[in-house]
């Protein structure tokens, strides 16, 4: 009896933990679990209870993994000390008693026979010998190893799904029921009216800044890109990578006019800057397989939505006139192919006052890589007007 009481209490802890981690759970979900327990589910063992929790509260594999880790953590803290389940100890629990066993034997090769002289085992490799630890050494507390980004895959995908432009194109193969009925009732003859299938006509070019100050954002940016890709359709999305600027080597001649100006603004010389299509972007994240930016623009940018993901120097915060010049020159080139382009900055807006970002946001619609930012970005790509301080 006290058993179930404690279970309820401990599951409540888990419930609170999950809610703190943003699981969409309400009181009904908690009540569901209680009902399940009352009905006799999940009472046989901790594992069963965990499975029941997973079944009721976790909506995806990742959520399941998170829930399991949290469940195991809570058990460690609340449940095991009560000495309730002396009998149902899992094998790991007896591990503490293996302390006399030299940990060397528990090293990477458990099938090897125990050697009487442990140091002999250490002689296996050149250089630094193996360290006598194993994953089990640290297994006392289960941790979560599933990344938890501020926005889930699903949330990002939902945001970007609005960018899909379904369009009927190609051979007419789909039955148009309305039109068929209409023609039948009008002419009395059954003539099937066929229409082309709906297709998503949105084409998306993602240009992603890598390396340097973007390094801390790689994981999250990759996560966002993958979500966008799955929202739009992988056929329609091309992701290419660059470092700092997609195109380099703009003509510096116009800068001379600015030589005695302290402000990093290029407004004065904006008309003199020539569109720039020199330089390469890369098809891989290691930046090893270059493609000329000119061909990329020609192949993918025409009438596409183009998204540039970069901190524009805001992370390190150094103003860099040449980088600004190159970027503006590249954007000018981009404008020749499409008008639908935006900039996503992984840093929040409050940090854009530094680096190239400060100037760039006056020339290009720049949004932060957050929910609100991406929502506005999608709106702009869908055609909503966006006030630009200084058009290129």
């Amino acid at each position, binding site marked *: 009896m006290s058993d179930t009481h404690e279970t309820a209490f401990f599951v409540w802890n888990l419930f609170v933990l999950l809610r703190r981690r943003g699981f969409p759970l309400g009181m009904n979900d908690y009540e569901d679990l209680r009902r399940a327990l009352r009905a006799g589910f999940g009472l046989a063992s901790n594992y069963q209870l965990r499975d029941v929790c997973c079944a009721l509260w976790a909506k995806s594999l990742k959520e399941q993994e998170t829930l399991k880790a949290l469940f195991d953590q809570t058990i460690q803290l609340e449940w095991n000390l009560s000495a309730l389940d002396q009998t149902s100890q899992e094998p790991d629990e007896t591990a*503490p008693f293996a302390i006399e066993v030299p940990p060397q034997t528990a090293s990477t090769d458990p099938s090897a026979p125990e050697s009487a002289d442990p*140091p002999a085992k250490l002689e296996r490799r050149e250089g*630094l010998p193996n360290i006598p630890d194993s994953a089990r*050494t640290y*297994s006392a*507390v289960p941790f979560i190893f599933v990344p938890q980004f501020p926005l889930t895959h699903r949330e990002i995908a939902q945001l970007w799904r609005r960018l899909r432009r379904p369009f009927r194109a190609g051979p007419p193969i789909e039955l148009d029921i309305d039109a068929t009925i209409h023609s039948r009732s009008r002419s009395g003859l059954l003539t099937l009216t066929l229409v082309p299938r709906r297709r998503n006509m949105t084409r998306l070019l993602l240009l992603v800044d890598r390396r340097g100050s973007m390094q801390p954002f790689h994981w999250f940016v990759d996560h966002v890109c993958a979500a966008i890709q799955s929202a739009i359709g992988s056929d329609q999305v091309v992701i290419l990578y660059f470092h700092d600027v997609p195109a380099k080597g703009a003509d510096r001649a116009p800068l001379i006019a600015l030589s005695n100006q302290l402000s990093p603004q290029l407004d004065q010389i904006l008309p003199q800057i020539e569109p720039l299509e020199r330089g390469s972007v890369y098809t891989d994240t290691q930046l090893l397989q270059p493609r000329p930016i000119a061909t990329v623009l020609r192949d993918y940018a025409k009438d596409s939505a183009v998204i540039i993901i970069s901190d524009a120097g805001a992370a390190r915060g150094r103003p860099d006139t040449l980088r600004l010049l190159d970027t503006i020159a590249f954007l000018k080139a981009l404008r020749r192919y499409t008008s639908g382009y935006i900039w996503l900055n992984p840093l929040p807006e*409050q940090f854009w006052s530094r680096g190239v970002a400060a100037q760039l946001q006056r020339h290009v619609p720049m949004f932060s890589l957050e929910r609100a930012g991406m929502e506005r970005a999608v709106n702009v790509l869908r055609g909503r007007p966006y006030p630009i301080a200084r058009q290129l």
Partner: protein
Amino acid sequence: VSVSPSIDNLRLLLSDAMPNADEQIIEQTLALARHAALPAALNTALVHLLRINFLPETAHAAEYNLLLSPLCRVIGDDLYEITPELRGALLYDLAKVHGPARVRNVARLLGQYTHRPGAPWGEDTPLERAQRLTALNFIDPTIAKEWMEHAEQRLGTGTSLDRAWFVAMRNEVTQIEQFVTISPSDSQPGFTGADILLVTVTAVEMRAVLDVLRTQFNRTIKRHNVGDKTYYDLGNIGGAAVAMVQSEIGAGGPGAALLTVQKSIDALNPVAVIMVGMALGLDSRKQHVGDVLVARQLALYELQRVGQSAAGAPQLRVRGDRPAVSPWLLDKFRSGVLDWRQPGGAALAEVHFGLVFSGEKLIDHQDFRNQLRMVEPEAIGVEMEGAGLYMAAIDRRIDWILVKAICDWGDGNKSRNKQQRQRLAAQNAAEFVFHVLKLGGVAQLRTVLQDIMPARKISNAPPLPSLMVSREDDMRQVKARLGVGIQDVHTMHVLTVIRGWPGVGKTTLVSALAHDPDVAATFPDGVLWASLGQEPNLLAELAAWGRALSIPNLAQARTTEEVSAQLRAVLRIKRMLLIVDDVWDARHTELFRVGGPGCALLVTTRLPGVARTIAPTPGDVYILGVLSDEKALELLQTLAPDAVREHPAVCQELVDDLEGLPLAIQVAGRLLQTEHSYGFSVVTLLEDIRAGARLIQEQAPVDRTEVANDTTPTIAALLNKSTALLDDETRNYFAYLGAFAPEPATFDADAMRDVWQVEDPKPIIRKLVDYGLLESVENGRFWMQKMLVAHAMSFLTDD
């Protein structure tokens, strides 16, 4: 040693680097930095995992803010390190803010991450080794150190790269060691004694206990200083709170086992004391180094008769006690042997039960050892502190047992392999003890013992007032709040505040509660009472509780906080009702909040502000109202039946005027009854009171007596009236009582005779009682209500 920057400097560093960031994100970044300081190097993923596992409420921004901040520097492709100069400071702060357990958990996360498939640090790279060694160093520093020594030896003339690696790692291993074992000494709060006290002697023994605790339970060990001893709070094991103390070698010396155990029992109030450590084996053929000896019985060999054998050689005859250890403890250890096994099934070490010699000699001589064996061939070992343990435990009536493992044979070869053997022995003994503790059943025993031997009932509550009026309703409600009659302890209100006017009967009500049989059933250990007033002597009141609970060493405590802590330790396991009467300052109550889960605290105050401050919620304040008209009249009728019978209407008026205040009605009633014979009637009394009240109201506030300040003019007039009717002599006697009566003053006739310096105090007493100025309680004692004391004092100041 480089100057390590303070955390404030780091905060400054961060806010400089992020000029637009708000304070919150800087704090969050710093919090993440504390965690990130442990690994030798960082990547984005690890920083992310640190955040979601340890700081789930922290913003995602903290991750890149940290990696882009000057706290981190880039050392490779998605590879960062916290600047080495800052790591120590951050890590120390991590231990300080989150406790050492958090440090170990970060190490665990690092270890688990390092072992994850995908080899985040590459295969067999120096970095991978560095991360693993760092993690291991926090989990098991001995193994980490051994590996270092071995690897360095083997490497000998390795590459310079490896050498540099070793220098760096050695530096790290030694630097970090301090965070791992013990947190900085904490102040008292939170430590409220223990169920089980472990006593160790040597450093090896203590370390073994801490090591086992760390590897098996992953615990934060906290130091606590109680009195002049340091205790290690080992946390809850098998349902029992376990603490450890270290004793000097031997039984009798200063700081040795006898005194240490005695002091520890007083400080922690354990249910059992277990001595754990190393001993000599007596039979190297049947026993092995590392075997565990559990004493069934001790033989104190110091008390000896040195006689002569038939052959003329000196012959020893041991005459000391042979105490047996506590049977229930022995039972726990005997049953613990059954499943003290390796996962494979082999026993971890042999456990022997039997007689153990205890004496003050450090034996390293074969002949002496053999003599002992001849005295008692069945003995299994010899040790030095058991005698002290036994004497202290018997003196304090606490259960005890001795568990020691064999480290040598006392045969003159003590120094051979000493370290290794001692470590093995200490470790085995500690492991076995923890194994038995884990099986539980010790904490439950405390309640079992308490039920078997009903505790001495403690109460320092004042005696029950003789006249208790019509408060059944209030009694019932307050009792319900205290959880009286409710089985489930958790629904009990831990704190109830009773607020009411002066004279309304708060003290009477709570003292009635203190004597109530239902309350006694709910709080079988009794009632503790303290009366504070405006300027209380808190130390004296606390000490009175300590004396009531017979806490020894009370005199050593110098501050109220120390006494509070001692009380807390004792009350932790008691079920008592604590009453703090007449609180004027909410801060005073804090010291009396010493009850454990089975205790309830009842506070009375006349000040609404104090009641509000003390009570956690407004619902915890019980407002004790004045008597209803009927009840007030009923009370008056009990006291002055003739008056009420003759003038019911005027009596009703009188009761109305007195606002249903029990004290006033009582004084008035007695007055009426006493003066009745002299033709004094209700009508005149009412008139007199009204006139007096007017007079008091007209007086300037400065001239008001204390009584008038405390209450309404009507009541003051009544009190004036009652004393005015006394003759001068009696009034003086009454005034003297005000001088010496603390509240709730009870005193007997002898005390009054001394104060008044009269032959026979009885006539005066009788008169005062008749006029309602003194109240008789049980056992020939008397007490005075607070307001009357104040009234009496007003005469003194007049003189």
